[in-house]
C-alpha cells in the first residue's frame, strides 16, 4: 500500500477522515435521504396548496363515485403497497448475495409500479374525457380543483415513472454483475418514498372527495 493511498483511506481503513462517521451510513444513502427530505417539502407544499384551495371553496366538487373511482384508486394503492413489499424483498435478497432473486423482486416491483401508472392514466382519461375536467376548467365551476388535482397527482406519477426507469437501470446492472447492495437499498428508499407520498394523496384527494350513492 502506497503512503498516498494510506492517507486517502485514513487510519481506520475508511474514506471518511473527519473522525468517526456520525451517521454510520454510506454517502449515497445519506444523499438520497437529503433528496427525499427536500422532495417531502415539495409534496407537503402541494398538498397544503390543495387543502388551502379546498377550504377557501365551500362548493369544492366531489367527483369520485365510490364505484368505480374509489375502488379503482384502492386497487392502485394495493399495487403500490405490494410493490413496496417486493422492493424490501429485493433489498433483502441483495444483502444475502442472491443477485438472481434481487432482479426478480425488482421486476415484480416494476410490475406493481407499472400497473399503478396504467390505472392512474386510465383514471385521468376518464376524468378528462367523461367528466370534462381539465387543469383550467371543469363542469362544477371550480377551476382550482383541476389545477391542484392534476399538478399533485401528475407530479406523483412523474416520480413513479422516474422510479420505474431508475429500477430498470438498477435491475439491468445487477443482472450484469454491477452495483452493490447499497445501490439497491438506495433505489429502495426512493421507491418507498413514492409509496409514502401516495399514503397522503389517496385519503386527502380521493377519499375526502368520495361520492356514495
Amino acid at each position, binding site marked *: 500500500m502506497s503512503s498516498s493511498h494510506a492517507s486517502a483511506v485514513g487510519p481506520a481503513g475508511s474514506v471518511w477522515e473527519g473522525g468517526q462517521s456520525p451517521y454510520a451510513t454510506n454517502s449515497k444513502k445519506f444523499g438520497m435521504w437529503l433528496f427525499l427530505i427536500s422532495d417531502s417539502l415539495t409534496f407537503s407544499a402541494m398538498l397544503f396548496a390543495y387543502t*388551502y384551495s379546498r*377550504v*377557501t371553496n365551500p362548493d369544492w366538487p366531489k367527483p369520485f363515485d365510490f364505484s368505480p373511482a374509489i375502488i379503482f384508486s384502492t386497487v392502485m394503492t394495493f399495487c403500490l403497497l405490494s410493490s413496496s413489499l417486493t422492493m424490501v424483498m429485493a*433489498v433483502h435478497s441483495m444483502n444475502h448475495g442472491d443477485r438472481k432473486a434481487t432482479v426478480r423482486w425488482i421486476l415484480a416491483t416494476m410490475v406493481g409500479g407499472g400497473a399503478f401508472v396504467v390505472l392512474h392514466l386510465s383514471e385521468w382519461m376518464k376524468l378528462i374525457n367523461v367528466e370534462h375536467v381539465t387543469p383550467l376548467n371543469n363542469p362544477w365551476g371550480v377551476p382550482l380543483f383541476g389545477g391542484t388535482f392534476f399538478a399533485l397527482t401528475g407530479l406523483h406519477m412523474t416520480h413513479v415513472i422516474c422510479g420505474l426507469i431508475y429500477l430498470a437501470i438498477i435491475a439491468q446492472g445487477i443482472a450484469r454483475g454491477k452495483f452493490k447492495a447499497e445501490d439497491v437499498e438506495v433505489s*429502495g428508499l426512493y421507491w*418507498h418514498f413514492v409509496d409514502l407520498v401516495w*399514503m397522503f394523496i389517496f385519503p*386527502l384527494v380521493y377519499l375526502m372527495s368520495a361520492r356514495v350513492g
Partner: protein
Amino acid sequence: MSNHAEEAVHVGGSISTFTKVWIALLAMTGIEVLLAYEQVPTLIMLTCLLGLSIIKAALIIAYFMHLKFERLSLFLTLFPMLIFCIVLMLIFLGDAVRIPNMRPPV
C-alpha cells in the same frame, strides 16, 4: 461470517416482520376506504384519515426504509426540521378559513 452477521444486524428486520407491516398497511387502507363509504362527518373523517396516514407513513419509514435500524443521529438530523417546516405551512390555514366569509354577498 462475522461480516455477514454484522450486515444482517445493520439491515435489520425479517421477512415476516415486513409481511406483517404490509398487512397492517393494507388493513389501515381498508379502514380508510370504509370511512369514506360510511360518509362520516368531514372533521372526524379528516382527523381519522390524517391519523391513519401518519401511522402508515411512520411504518413505511421505520421498517421499509429501515430508519428504525439506523443511528438515532440520522433521524434527529432529518426529521425534526421536516416536521417543523410542515407545521409552519399550517399557519396560513387560518386565512383559508376566513376567505369564504369575506366574499361579498352575490
